[in-house]
Structures are given as C-alpha cells and as structure tokens.
C-alpha cells in the first residue's frame, strides 16, 4: 500500500506546475543559477529515474533532503512529530471529553430541546472553517482578554530541554512547573480550534449509535431489572455504543496526527503540518513526499491500534 501511495504522490507532486528551483531562488535568479540548482536537486534527470532513486533511498529510510530546511526529511519529521502529537492528543482529549458526554445526553433525551441545541452546535462545528475559528479565538482570548498566550508552544523566556519532545512531559521531568503551566496555556487555543471538528463528529456518532443501542432488548432488560438509569446508560448502553465511536476517534486521531496544516500555520506551531505547508508552498518535492508517506504510515498504524482496541471493548471480537 505504501508503495502505491508513494507512486501516486511522486508523480502528482511533479505534475504541479511551478519549478522548485525557480521558487527557491526567487525572482532575482538568473537562468544559469536556476539550471545549477535544478542539477543539484537532481531535477534534470528523467522522472522515472528520479522515482527509482527515490524508492531505493526510501527503502533505506532516506526520504531525501528537504529543500525548505536543507536537512533530511526524516530528521525533519522526527523533530516535528512531538509537537504535532502533543497538539493532537490535546485536541482529541477536548473532542472526546466533550463529544462523548454531549452525544450520550442528547441520545438519552432524543428530540428534546437540549438535543436540538447540541445538534445545531455539532453541525456548526462540522461546517466551521478552522482558520476562522482560530482567528476568533486569538482575537478574543489573546488580543482582547489577554488570558491565553500566543503564538508557538512556549512564551519568551521559557525553555525546556527536549527529552520526549512533548513540552508538558519534559517540563514535568525537569520539574519546571512554570513552563508546564505556560505550555498548557499555549495548547488551549490550538487544541480547541483543532478539536472542534472531531468533537462534532464524535457527538453525532455517539448520539446515533447510542440511540440504536438504547432500543435494544438488553437495555430494556436492564431497565426491567430495576437498575438505576445512569447505570443502564453507562454500563450497558455506552459500552456497546462505543464501537463505532472508537473507530471515528481513531480515524480522526490519525488524520490530525498527519499534521494539522491550517491550525499549525496560524498558531506558529512547529509541527508536521507547518512543515507540510512550507513544503507545498515551496514545491519541496522531498518534503511533500515525506509528509504524505508519513501520514499514510501513521494511518495504517492508527487503524491497527483501533482494530486491536475493538477486542478489548467487545469480547466477541477475536484475532
């Protein structure tokens, strides 16, 4: 599958008009300089030869050097992955801890006023453009109220040694609680901006599968046994309703971890998404290929993880 992805990406990237050498050198470049850079980048060779060389290197774990930063793409991805991971985990935390309870509540009382309100909110969440939401958050919480910091991962004056690359973990490991708090505050706005879409998806998914489950015989049985309502909802219904929700959570996590381009760019978050943005805008072939291959591999891994999780949630699933 990864080879298929690489093939598609490799040729599509080269089909985009725009000469990377020209973009690299800018407007002031002479023809000779452009030719020289094209040669250095190996762009003067036939595309098929370029692909062959790419595959050979990729098999050795070498995705080439990024044009944007001049460092190997793999180094670049590893360096940026923790920032994206931290943001993703936080965004998903927000999405799950809001999305699931809200979905449950609206399923318990379907078509009530509360349900209608949350449905509208969920729809808004799905259709809201992230860049708009992000700017509103920045204007309200940073510029006007001044209660949340921006941009980046830490404020000026804070630094933590990169052990895991996760600010919150590293600051705790080095007992730098001020940096922990600062890093936490920096996470809030991007996490909300990024988490809103998955939150809305999770709410809707939880609601619909809960509705289905609530009508099942075993729920009726549980009720008939005289169990307290919250026990029926959480112990009997929710656990069964979680399967599709878990799938959605997994898929969304995989997508976010691939790099949230818009959110990371707006918040100057030095993650994979920002790298993807830089790569695309400067026609960094190696960078784009690297990001896509990384995203595809991640997706495979996350799906595997979700499949394995099924077995934990549903004893009938066996491998």
């Amino acid at each position: 599958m990864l080879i298929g992805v690489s093939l598609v990406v490799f040729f599509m990237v080269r089909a985009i008009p725009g000469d990377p050498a020209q973009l690299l050198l800018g407007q002031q470049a002479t023809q000779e300089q452009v030719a020289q850079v094209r040669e250095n980048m190996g762009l003067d060779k036939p595309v098929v030869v370029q692909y062959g060389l790419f595959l050979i290197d990729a098999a050795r774990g070498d995705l080439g050097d990024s044009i944007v930063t001049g460092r190997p793409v793999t180094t670049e991805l590893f360096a940026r992955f923790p920032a994206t991971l931290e943001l993703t985990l936080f965004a998903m935390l927000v999405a799950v801890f809001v999305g699931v309870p809200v979905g449950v509540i609206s399923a318990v009382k379907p078509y009530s006023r509360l349900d209608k309100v949350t449905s509208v909110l969920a729809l808004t969440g799905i259709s809201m453009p992230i860049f708009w939401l992000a700017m509103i958050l920045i204007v309200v919480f940073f510029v006007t109220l001044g209660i949340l910091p921006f941009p980046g991962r830490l404020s000026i004056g804070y630094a933590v040694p990169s052990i895991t690359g996760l600010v919150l973990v590293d600051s705790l490991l080095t007992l730098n609680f001020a940096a922990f708090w600062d890093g936490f505050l920096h996470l809030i706005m991007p996490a909300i901006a990024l988490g809103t879409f998955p939150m809305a998806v999770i709410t809707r998914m939880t609601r619909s599968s809960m509705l289905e489950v609530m009508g099942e015989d075993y729920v009726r049985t549980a009720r008939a046994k005289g169990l307290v309502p919250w026990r029926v909802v959480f112990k009997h219904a929710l656990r069964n309703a979680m399967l599709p929700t878990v799938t959605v959570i997994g898929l969304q996590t995989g997508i976010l971890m691939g790099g949230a381009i818009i959110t990371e760019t707006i918040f100057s978050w030095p993650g994979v998404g920002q790298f993807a943005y830089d790569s695309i805008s400067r026609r960094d072939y190696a960078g784009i290929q690297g990001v896509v291959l990384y995203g595809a591999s991640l997706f495979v891994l996350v799906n595997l993880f979700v499949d394995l999780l099924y077995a934990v949630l549903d004893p009938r699933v066996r491998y």
Partner: protein
Amino acid sequence: MNRRQFLRLSGAGFAGAALLGAAGCGGGGTISGGQGGGGGGNVNTFVFGRGADSVTLDPINTTDGESLRVTRQIFDGLLDFAPESTDVIPALAAEIPKPEDGGRLYTFTLREGVTFHDGAPFNAEAVVFNFDRWRLEDNEFHTGGGGQSENFAYYVGQFGGFDGDSIIEAVEAVDEYTVRFSLKQPQGPFLKNVAMSPFGIASPKAIQNNVEGFWQNPVGSGPFTFVSWNRGSTVELEANDEWWGADVPASEGGGGPEVSKVTIRAIPDNTARVAALVGGELSAADGLTPDDVKPVEQAGLKVEYRPPLTIGYLAMNNEKAPFDNPDVRRAIYQAIDMDAIVEAFFGNTGEIATTYMPPTVPFFNDQIERFPFDPDAARQLLADAGEENLQTELWYMPIPRPYMPDGKGIAQAMQQDLKEVGVTAKLVTREWGTYLQETGEGAHPMALLGWTGDNGDPDNFLNVLLGSASATPTDALNIAYYKNPEVDKLLQQGQSTIVESEREQAYMEAQELLVEDTPWVPIAYAKPPLGFQKNVQGYQASPTGGEAFNTVTLSGGA
C-alpha cells in the same frame, strides 16, 4: 486478568507504543519560546516577527531576504549602507576607498582591533580568505550553506562569475590592515555591491573548523552573536559587547547594541502575526499589509515605513501584437487612472511611480512626469492603431508582494478603466511559482509584476528589468521583452564607468528613452510598513528592508 485479556491489552499497547515511541526520537536540543531571563517577558529582549524562517545563516550562500535579515546582525561587511538610505558607508573598512587606475584598483584600509565572535582577529588575511572562498571554485572552502545552498549566487550576480569570469581579478593583503582589489574592468556599482549584506566577512577560523556546519553556526564580527536557531520558529541572538561599532555615531551605522537579546520569530500567517503584535507578544512586526495599518495604529501602536526601494508595474509584452506598437502601450498607460488606484490600494504605503526606478536610487530623473490620465487620448491612439476593440489578457499575481499589496484588486480596477476605452482585458492568474515561470517565458500579453532592489543602484533596476540581456526565452526578468539597443548602450555605459557625471548622464537619458517607449505602465513605489510597540525606539527602517538592530532600544515595560 486472564491470558486472553492480557494478550489483547498488550497487543493494543504495542501498537500505541509504536506510535508514541516515535516521539522519543524528538529528543535532543531544547524547546523554547525564545530566550530571556527565566520566566515572563524580559524587557530587554527585542522580538521581531516576520513571515518566514531563515533558510541558512551563511550569508554568501543565499539570496533569501529572511536569511539575510538575520545574518546582517551577525556579520559586518567591508562597507555598509547608511541607515535609512542606500548611501555607502565604511564598516569593517576604516574608510571608503577611492578608485585608482580608472576604477581597476581599490585599496581598502581596515579597522584595527576588531575580533570575530570566536576570538579570531579580523585583518587583511581574513578579507582575502573570504573573497577567495567566494571567488575561486577550486578553493577548498568554496562550499557550505547547507542543503539549500545557492552556491555563492550573489557573488555571481554582482561580480560576474567565478574564477576567470569574476570582475574581481585579485584580492591581496598589502599589510596587516590593507587589502587591494584588482578589477578586470571598472564596475560602476562596485562599492555598492561590496556593501551588500551577503558579502559579510566570516571568521576564517570558524570556516576552517567546519565549513559544512557554518550555515547553522555562523560566526561574524557584528553587533549580535548567534545563540540558537529553532528551525521553523525562532532565531536567537545576544548582544556583542565587544562590537567595534559601539563608539561610531548612529548616523554612520554604529551605536549599541542597546538591547541585550534579540529573538527573530517566524509567524507565517499575516493576520496571526499582526495579532501577536497587538497582543504584545512581539516588539515589532514586518510584512504589514496596507489594511493592517489602521487597526495597528488604533490599537495604540506605531507604524513606520521603509523608504521605497521597490517598483510595481504593468508590463506589456513588447513582442506580442499589438503591444509591439508603442502607441498602443501609450494608450493603455493613459487609459488607467493610476492616482485613484494607488490611493485605493496603497494609501500611505506607496507613492505613485513616475519613471522606471524608485526615487531612493541615485540618478533618479525627477524631471519626468507621468503621462496624464486621459481616456479620450487613449481612445484616439487606439483608433489610430486600428485597435478599437482590443481583446487581451491581464495577468496578476495570486499573492500579495512587497511591491503590490493586492494584485487582483489592482487588476480589476485596471480592467474597468480599460473597458472605458474599449479594451476588453480578461483577468488571468496562476499559482505564484507558475506565475513567475510563465511570465518568464513571455506567455502573457500584459502582466503585473514588481521588483525590490538589492543595492540601490540604477543598474539593479534598469539593466536587470529592461536590458535586452534579461529578455531571455525562459526565466526572463525583463518580462516586457523590451529590447532597445540605444537603451542597452546607455545602461552598459552606466554599468562600466565609474565617473559619476557619465553615469548620471547615461541613466537620465535612459529613463527618458524608456518613458518615450513605454514598455510598462509604472504603478507605484511601495513603502513597506512595519508595526512597533510604543516602547521601541531607534529602529532605522531601511529601503533595502534589511535593518541592523544595533540602535534599537526598549524603554520601560513591554
């Protein structure tokens, strides 16, 4: 927990660990929000926000403006540009040398007692070392710059090429503080070229130790020393208390460094960068658009403008009918109400252009006035040329550029004006990289474009943009494909003589011929705005766009 449950859990755990495990590879280095005293905003750190990160920190191996913005804080050249202008002033040279032997010889006397940040002494040997590194292809240090190195592009651009192609034939150390440059032929803008920031003098010791790593560990002699570079976000610098310029007056490029630390932060999104400035996270922000000026001022912040060293223009493809006819070009010129366009799209951030280079450039012909806006005259010219119902295309760039804040808006306004005189112009755009490529191949009949000067010499505008040598089949810089042997001769004269009066005459005359031929409709000289906190003083906005931060002071709390 029974065995089956254990296996399931450990299976899930394994896949999770594989995901998390990769995070561990991010180890090494630090994650920081920029330096400063432990915790909180440090009042003596100057934080400069910009649109993109540096590409390399080896100044000679890049043409990228954001890379040079940083290196010019770390490196000094032999010469420099005076603050807020493009006049040449001495830097590491003690004075500006006089041309000898008709401009084939320059003898630089160097400042004494200067040391590089690594303690290596600055002397004639160091100058020779740097020029030899740039100039000679077989020099063992003719390399470096990192993966995105542009291979000494500015040396080639300003001095003609390497080895035998180089206009500089020899650089010799006469004694410890005297260096002699021999030129193959006189070069009019020679001193201006030397003053450009790519030609910052690097520590020979640092280059010898690790030439391949120099681009991420730069060592110069400038007002600030390099501390660290967080790729994609910040570059951090520290004041060099030993800087030679501390006692030199600010008007001559000296003074300071006043702030103890500098953080240069990349915030690619324009709105986000302005928000960061307004919210107090930045001391200064570059890349404001004309639309940002008012909100920034309303928020109680300062806006300053760089003197214009840019020109935005509408190029007409002189090789494509009917624009091969100067009367048609003149008609287009007179059909467009440029005053209204500049007022609407530039506001305070631009002046209407009268000729083919900005007024900060020497030998600017201030006698020239624009052809008046006159739709009737335009209609008449078109009728005489038999082009009453001209159907054509007007290309515009898809993104804001320093010389053109809103290509699309300007193109639409022009389209309306042209319609009034019977010209139907279809608006065309391409993604930016493609736009440069296709206009560089002459695919357009009419196209918006512009230029930011490198060194404030007329050669860098007129010859680059309108000389026939730049009208190449691909990657053309002369996208009007304007070729006039007479103009070429004048430009050649201006380039190769060092006699000021001859240069003046050549460029004055060239501008007059250009106006006559009208290869472009000049639009405006943009004055790029910068936003500042109220407490920032002493920022010397420069036409070249690359300011030294040595004179910047921060008063009181941020």
